């Protein structure tokens, strides 16, 4: 008897499962969007009624994941042509590599109204492959210094518009009071090619270091790298928060919002979070400055965009493009401005946004634009390099290399090894990987 009941229950369950997954309305195209769980993307999810009202024949399904999980999922899916997603949220690093493999639909036909020429040139260049746009920027960012004007005033310090690393080091050490849980500077330390390596690479660039010479020999044994990494390590030891070796963007944002950091050098998009009085305890006293340099002609700022792309082989290509055209349009910016204010508009994607007087009034608008414009992925550092990318190297091997090296620097920050040891191990790892990939 029991067995029969169980059997029946199991069958019922199986039927249910089959039923729900097979269910689909024949008139409605479903677009499945894989996206990252950051503030701007979640805001977009909340505003999709505007899109579905205009396109009643398109239904949107969201797969919102944490950044690391998202990357792994979409890469796995696109590399095997799994076809799970119709729109993928990807970055400036993935776009040219995937486009070269023929994995992405070109986005050169998003319509007259879309005005692709309005996209900031740096963003457009970074998201194109051989002159064709393959991913539309949802928001773009560079990096800059965010600092606490109240603390600076109290200490009698003044932040120049273009600080040097030496000045930053001095400020940070002055502002640090570990007893009172006040740390001079918060910087990324969490291992990962998109976490600490993004930041450390920009520091290295500003010190004149480079990842590879023209023949793809790893350059981590150069004196410039040692100087840059030692500077970073000492600065964090003297003026950084505890646990810095596991702090990424999110952790530092939380610390800065709680008022525990005097300065924070990170993505320009953070500006709208730290000045938002709802989340930030220091919203009224945040100032901005360009990322520091060492006088060698390169600032330590990066260039990045979270962009929307359509994998080739999607069964809803047209609907997916409709969605992208909506999400990255001028109208969408207006829509956010109307509902949430100009400060919350996704920044860094369109020229017209920065020409809009209403947006120019936002405190961080000018500094963001200037930071983006000084970033040049073709010439990231002082010397010539064979690669494209400022805080990354746009080759498929970079994810592996960046993360492995990132762990060495994270270990260094945790005090488990010296900068010399970290660089020596990273150098070995990188050469190993490059040899295997057939570069040398």
């Amino acid at each position, binding site marked *: 008897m029991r067995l029969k009941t169980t059997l029946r229950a199991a069958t019922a369950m199986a039927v249910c499962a089959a039923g729900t997954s097979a269910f689909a309305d024949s008139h409605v195209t479903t677009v499945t969007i894989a996206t990252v769980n950051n503030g701007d993307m979640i805001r977009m999810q909340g505003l999709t009624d505007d899109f579905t009202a205009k396109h009643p024949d398109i239904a949107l399904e969201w797969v919102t994941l944490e950044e*690391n999980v998202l990357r*792994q999922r979409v*890469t*796995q899916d696109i*590399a*095997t042509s799994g076809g799970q997603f119709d729109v993928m949220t990807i970055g400036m690093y993935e776009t040219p*590599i995937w486009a070269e*493999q023929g994995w992405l639909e070109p986005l050169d036909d998003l319509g007259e109204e879309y005005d692709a020429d309005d996209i900031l040139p740096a963003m457009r260049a970074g998201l194109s492959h051989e002159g064709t746009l393959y991913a539309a920027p949802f928001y773009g960012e560079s990096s800059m210094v965010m600092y606490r004007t109240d603390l600076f005033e109290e200490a009698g310090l003044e932040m120049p518009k273009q600080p040097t690393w030496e000045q930053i080091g001095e400020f940070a050490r002055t502002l640090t009071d570990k007893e009172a*849980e006040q740390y001079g500077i918060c910087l990324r330390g*969490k*291992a*990962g090619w998109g976490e600490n390596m993004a930041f450390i690479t920009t520091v290295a660039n500003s010190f004149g270091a480079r990842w590879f010479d023209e023949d793809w020999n790893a350059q981590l044994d150069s004196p410039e790298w040692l100087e840059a990494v030692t500077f970073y390590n000492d600065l964090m030891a003297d003026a950084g*928060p*505890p*646990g810095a*070796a*596991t702090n990424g963007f999110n952790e530092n944002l939380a*610390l800065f919002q709680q008022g*525990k950091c005097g300065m924070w050098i990170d993505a320009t998009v953070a500006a709208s979070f730290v000045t938002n009085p709802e989340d930030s305890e220091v919203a009224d006293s945040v100032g901005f400055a360009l990322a520091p340099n060492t006088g060698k002609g390169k600032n330590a700022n990066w260039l990045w965009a979270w962009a929307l792309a359509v994998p080739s082989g999607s069964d809803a290509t047209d609907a997916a493009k409709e969605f992208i055209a909506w999400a990255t349009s001028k109208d969408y910016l207006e829509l956010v401005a109307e509902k949430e204010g100009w400060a919350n508009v996704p920044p860094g994607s369109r020229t017209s946004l920065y020409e809009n007087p209403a947006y120019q009034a936002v405190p961080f608008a000018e500094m963001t634009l200037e930071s983006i414009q000084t970033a040049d992925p073709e010439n990231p550092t002082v010397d010539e390099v064979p690669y494209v990318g400022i805080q990354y190297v746009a080759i*498929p*091997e970079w*994810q*592996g290399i960046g*993360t*492995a090296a*990132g*762990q060495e620097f*994270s*270990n260094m920050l*945790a*005090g*488990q090894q010296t900068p010399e040891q970290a660089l020596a*191990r990273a150098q*070995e*790892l990188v050469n*190993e*990987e490059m040899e*295997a*990939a057939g570069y040398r």
Partner: protein
Amino acid sequence: MATKASASAARLMMAPAVTLLLGWMLVPLVMTLYFSFADYRPLRGAFEPWIGFENYERFVTSSSFWDAVTTTLTMVGGILVITVCFGILLALLLDKPIYGQGVVRILVIAPFFVMPTVSALVWKNMMMDPVNGILSHVWRFFGAAPHDWLVQTPTLSIILIVSWQWLPFATLILLTAIQSLDGEQLEAAEMDGAPPLKRFWFIILPHLSRAITIVILIQTIFLLSIFAEIFVTTQGSFGTRTLTYLVYQRVLESQNVGLGSAGGIIAVILANIVAIFLMRIVGKNLDA
């Protein structure tokens, strides 16, 4: 007494389970073996079906391999020691007559119901965080500088997190075993004036040996493949990269499927060596 007919019926009854598991083992294994001899890097569009043992050589000779093996053994060993020792103590405690036994038992087994991802997130952000974590508040309360768990003692921290999850399992099995202990024997020993420690050593522990081996066997199988706890907390930095995590990095982060598959095969071989070793012991114990 097994007749020929019932013997063949028995074979028939085992067939679905055996066939399915055989398929589940062989199909992915054969495919992984195939990939492990190939240069398969999807991001480069590279697929070269036969490159010999190059992947194996590179995986084993890479500087991270032996570290990963050591880390894996340390972690599994550490967790086993903690869960078994504390499991015995807890089981003995729960066997005592206590007020509200049922509620206490619920409290103790609750961690087993928490999914690994959640428990790792909770421990990382709310317990061990050096600024906002509860443990650092406790440290500060006693006037000590907060300990940065995941950076200064990363392996220990992960061992603690995983032990917290598996302690209930060990406790439950050991508790059932203790409860089956012959009370009269213990009482006789008590009458004879044997001190508690002696009673534990000569009566309780031998009785538990079978349960302990089973706890060790089952936990080892699960622990060799812990992943979420590392992924959420340290992402393999600070020397917490286990063999499983190394394979993950090769396959998914570097997208080098060939190399990762070779690593997977090596991991299977090593796991089976451990398993054979364990099963010898358990197999003996199963008959005893």
